[in-house]
């Protein structure tokens, strides 16, 4: 099931895949620059920009002070000046100090300028739960997705980490690239999704979901690390005779609800799993789009499984019951399979 056995698969982690993508893009295009806290000398707290400053120098790979509002706005100015900045906000939880420049400037300037100004800018940031409590565990992709003008990319597979980072950098649109901390340090051999990362430059189209496991009984749509959890759950349930189709959404904006609807129409059951907060988020939006596409009575069951509108607690005993994982996902799938 895992990649350990496969030849041709480098046993790198997602951080390395990302660093490789950025490096290749910086080589291809000298307008690409990177800035953020600890991205330079340290190579990123998760190593996802390792080696870049040595290679491209401190002007193109800039360690910043802790001043996100200003260096995010600096990214906007750089983009207007003709550069293609990759701005790292270390953890997505910190976005509250600089959302302003992201949603009122970066995301709106293309429209506000009547199409005269492009902002080819990437915000690269890490989300997800690995035990870091309320202020360092959030996902927040729906926070960005609610605000118009930015694409929101949330890769899971190693292959996508490299390809979608390249696509984000090449895109003329503002892109939020949300990594999952648990994937950043996960190695190819431990991935259930595509661990194959070609050494050469490639870009993966943004906006297409992918069926990563075919199944008859339930359609499970999810993203980021939860795709791995879902595959783990699905593999376990196969033994119980429950056949789950798993879809990796890969981006939240654009949201490929068509692929999900096609599957859900066939299975009649839709489960959306989301490590972000439950309410006013991805789960309702995706389910509603599917319902809008198929009509209200096309589905026998729709369920949402997400963080139940509670800050992430520090204690592992609490975190485990709050955050969707393979066990809780399997439980919901079992209930659905039993139902109508």
């Amino acid at each position, binding site marked *: 099931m895992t990649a350990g056995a496969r030849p041709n698969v480098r046993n790198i982690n997602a951080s390395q895949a990302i660093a490789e993508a950025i490096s290749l893009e910086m080589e291809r295009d000298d307008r690409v*620059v990177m800035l953020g806290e600890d991205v330079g000398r340290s190579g990123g707290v998760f190593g996802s920009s390792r080696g870049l400053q040595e290679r491209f120098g401190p*002007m*193109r790979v*800039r360690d*910043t*002070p802790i*001043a996100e*509002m*200003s*260096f*995010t*706005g*600096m*990214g*906007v*100015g*750089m*983009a*207007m*000046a*003709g*550069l293609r*900045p990759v701005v790292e906000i270390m953890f997505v939880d910190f976005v509250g100090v600089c959302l*302003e*420049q992201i949603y*009122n*400037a970066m995301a709106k*300037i*293309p*429209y*506000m*300028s*009547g*199409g*005269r*100004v*492009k902002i*080819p800018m990437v915000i690269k940031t890490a989300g997800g739960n690995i035990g870091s409590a309320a202020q360092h565990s959030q996902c927040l992709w729906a926070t960005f997705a609610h605000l*118009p*003008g930015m*694409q929101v990319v949330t890769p899971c597979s190693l292959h996508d980490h490299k390809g979608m980072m390249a696509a984000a950098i090449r*895109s*003329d*649109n503002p892109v939020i690239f949300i990594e999952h901390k648990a994937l950043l340090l996960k190695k190819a051999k431990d991935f259930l999704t595509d661990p194959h990362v070609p050494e050469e430059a490639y870009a993966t*189209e*943004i*906006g*297409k979901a992918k069926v990563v496991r075919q199944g008859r009984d339930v359609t499970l749509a999810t993203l980021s690390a939860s795709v791995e959890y879902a595959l783990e759950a699905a593999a376990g349930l196969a033994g119980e005779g429950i056949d789950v189709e798993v879809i990796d959404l890969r981006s939240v904006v*654009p949201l490929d609800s068509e692929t999900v609807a096609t599957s859900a129409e066939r299975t009649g059951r839709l489960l959306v799993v989301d490590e972000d907060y439950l309410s006013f988020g991805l789960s309702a939006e995706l389910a509603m789009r599917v319902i809008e596409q198929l009509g209200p009575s096309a589905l026998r069951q729709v369920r949402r499984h997400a963080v139940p509108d509670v800050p992430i607690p520090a204690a592992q005993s609490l975190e485990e019951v709050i955050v969707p994982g393979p066990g809780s996902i399997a439980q919901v799938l079992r209930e659905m399979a039993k139902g109508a």
Partner: protein
Amino acid sequence: MAADELARFASMARLRAFEEACLEGVPTFEIHGELHTGIGQEAIAAGMIAALRDRDALVSTHRNHMHALAKGVNARALMAEIFERETGLCRGRGGHMHPFDPERNFSATGIVGASLPVALGYAYAFKLRGEPHLAIGVTGDGGANHGTFHECLNMAAAWKLPLVVLVENNQYAISVRFADVTATATIAERASAYGAWGKCVDGTDVEAVETAFGEAMEHARAGKGPAILEATCYRFRGHYEGDHDSYRPRAEKKESRASLDPIARYRGMLIARGKATADELDAISSQAKFEMTAILAAVRADRQPDPSGALDHIFAEVSP
């Protein structure tokens, strides 16, 4: 230098005439949102013209029209944008707080504190590419109390970026008095906290502004890091058109309009110096008024954007 002097006067006259033309759009609802004009603050923008170069970047605020004109943005396109027309600088999408002119490296934002970071980005890009251009970030006195002032000056100084921070200190952030919410008597004296160049100048004296702005630009151009130029002034109208403005004492407003009008002051100076007669200066003012009235008439004949285009320009490419 009579030519320069008359040119300066003409610049100020044009700026004011432009703003006055804009005022016409408020009662008619051609400008259906709010409008902030810089009337009374013309000497600052006019004083910048001499030192500004085409590729220099200027990032302004909610009160941006005069900076745009100083940067060479086309007055017709700017006014059309303010009047929400398809012929506007941004096809009527941006409006008066959000004009963007990539050819002139001019932009603005309606969010206080948001201008300096963008200017810093230009400054960084210029340095990275080894270009001789400078970036000017404008803020009001109110905006100078925002955290970005600190963050941007610190970064610009640490990295010796060619950034000039121009502070238009009109003593008020809407109703909030500068002295009530500011620790120091001037903004310029904060320069020491960044090892930056700093100066506070009478912003109603166009020649003083021109000289000081030239010095600030020279400092930044020399690779010595950022400069803070604070220019004091008084806002002659409400914060926005429609503002009750009852928070400023009547007497203060009256006196300030009498003593701090940069155009009247310069007019007096030029006549006193014998550089021009009252009639000559009035002719310049009339000419400015004529130009802007003509532009206004042309803008008024332009169409509003076609509703069918309301969803254009959100993304640069069609999403795959």
